[in-house]
């Protein structure tokens, strides 16, 4: 994974079939789709752009990080936030959609990395699931700081506990792990585990705080960023992220960026898809 030949893995437009669509928590679902071509080539941190509705009312696709690959299926996590994800929650086994993928640049964790700290806030766990499995498979020690509003919403907890050396939790209400923000967990793990790299995804205010913690500790930090997106292939310039090299496209230049490159200019928004 995270190899240099990522440019050779071109995206395809693939018809996908829903294999399962399970409610994991209030407003959170796990969608399993049969997508052999995408499953065969997707790298951790990449995403698929799903055409949820074939009608002309809601016209735009919605991007979802690939959470896991199992055989010829891909899994995505979603939170019902708007029209697109509401429609997605209504999909049943056997329903067809089409997906463009794999898209974007994922996590680039070099072969020399011995210990990685993954920090996930809420649905930020989505692009980190596949990474955790991949790193563990390569013999990298993985620590995970996982946060969510409630214990029920720690949706990828079982996956992380299966493959990571250490998983520490934080919830807003204290129903699992410590009560508070995941950033206090990440601060502690940074100090204790001395990781070679930090990979973070979650609400931007939290990702930014983790990036600052990593910078203070002198540890490289990669961050997966979310933006409202139309085309997903680099044409429309909807999803730009402000970086030291100008405004780059989350869909093709990201969604994973080197945190040092990101200019946290407040242009992030909670996507209401």
């Amino acid at each position, binding site marked *: 994974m995270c190899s240099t030949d990522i440019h050779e893995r071109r995206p395809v437009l693939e018809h996908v079939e829903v294999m399962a669509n399970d409610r994991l928590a209030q407003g959170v679902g796990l969608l399993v789709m049969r997508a052999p071509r995408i499953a065969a080539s997707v790298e951790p941190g990449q995403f698929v752009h799903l055409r949820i509705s074939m009608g002309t009312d809601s*016209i735009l*696709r919605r991007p979802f990080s690939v959470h896991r690959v199992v055989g010829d299926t891909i899994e995505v996590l979603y939170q019902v936030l708007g*029209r697109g994800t509401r429609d997605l929650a209504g999909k049943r086994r056997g329903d067809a959609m089409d997906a463009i993928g794999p898209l974007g640049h994922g996590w680039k964790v070099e072969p020399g990395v011995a210990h990685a700290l993954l920090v996930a806030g809420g649905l930020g766990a989505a692009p980190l699931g596949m990474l955790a499995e991949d790193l563990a498979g390569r013999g990298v020690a993985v620590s995970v700081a996982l946060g969510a509003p409630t214990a029920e919403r720690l949706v990828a907890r079982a996956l992380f506990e299966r493959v990571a050396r250490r998983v520490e939790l934080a919830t807003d209400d204290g129903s699992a792990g410590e009560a508070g923000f995941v950033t206090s967990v990440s601060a502690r793990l940074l100090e204790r585990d001395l990781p070679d790299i930090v990979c973070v995804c979650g609400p931007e205010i939290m990702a930014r705080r983790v990036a600052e913690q990593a910078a203070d500790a002198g540890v490289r930090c990669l961050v997966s960023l979310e933006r*409202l997106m139309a085309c997903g*292939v680099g*044409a*429309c*310039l909807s999803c730009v992220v402000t970086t030291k090299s100008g405004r780059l496209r989350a869909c093709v230049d990201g969604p994973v960026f080197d945190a040092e490159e990101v200019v946290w200019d407040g*242009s992030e928004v909670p996507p209401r898809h």
Partner: protein
Amino acid sequence: MDPKSPRATDASSQVDLTVDMAGLKLRNPVMTASGTFASGREYADFLDLSRLGAVVTKGVSLEPWAGNASPRIAETASGMLNSIGLQNPGVEAFVARDLAWLAGHDVPVIVNVSGHTVKEYAAVVERLDAEPSVAGMEINISCPNVDAGGMAFGTDCTAAAEVTRAARAVTGKPLIIKLSPNVTDIADIARAVEAAGADAVSLINTVLGMSIDARSRRPRLARTVGGLSGPAIKPVALRMVWQVASAIELPVIGMGGVRTAEDAVEFMLAGATAVAVGTASFVDPTATIRVIDGLESFCQETGVAHVSDLTGALVL
């Protein structure tokens, strides 16, 4: 048909899809709408660019433009708003990187040109005139998302004519003026640019609109207002294409919600010589090819020998 396959050369297909538009011979009347197709490279994974009538590029300005703050888009009923703000790397980077790539793809390249001032427009046109791989230029006097220039030139007959004259003075290549729907009488603007030396007009650019999040009480776009596109604007676009085609002699390129071959036919019946597919490419990256294949089928099924016979064939 696989959109990545070269065009079928089926001798039994009697339909002539070629069109003459402002001195350009196009293999079919289906083009890309500026700003929805970048410079083609982003879509080359999904379709064979040489099947398109033309690629119309994202707007290019004299200097690099950073564009607007995010969020830049909002989905609305049957459409979307955008306020990208013409982010682009400037004409020199465009020529070196995008045009050089596109030039090898056997498709006419029409470069969309943006500016803050008449001088800037003319400077970009003059620079592009020197590039043999530029088949024509489309002058964007209708972008609702920039503070200076853009739509300001497209909503005033005198300013629209001035930009057209300045561009005309520095190029002999086909010159298309892209018109704004955000005007009282679009036919007046069309007449003004015709008199000033344009070779064709394209319309419509996006319709100025707004979306608000009721709970946060905030506009959904960082810039508050933006341009509406997609199926929602098709009736407005059809009406304006019909009005303009009735008012001037120049060829009209029709766009605004073109998603299917029947949409394209409707625009041609209203008077368009060619059409452009825009927002539909975001939804389906192969939308242009579907429209081209569908046009051919439509003509076969309805006994139309030359697709250009549809232009202005509206029955009233």
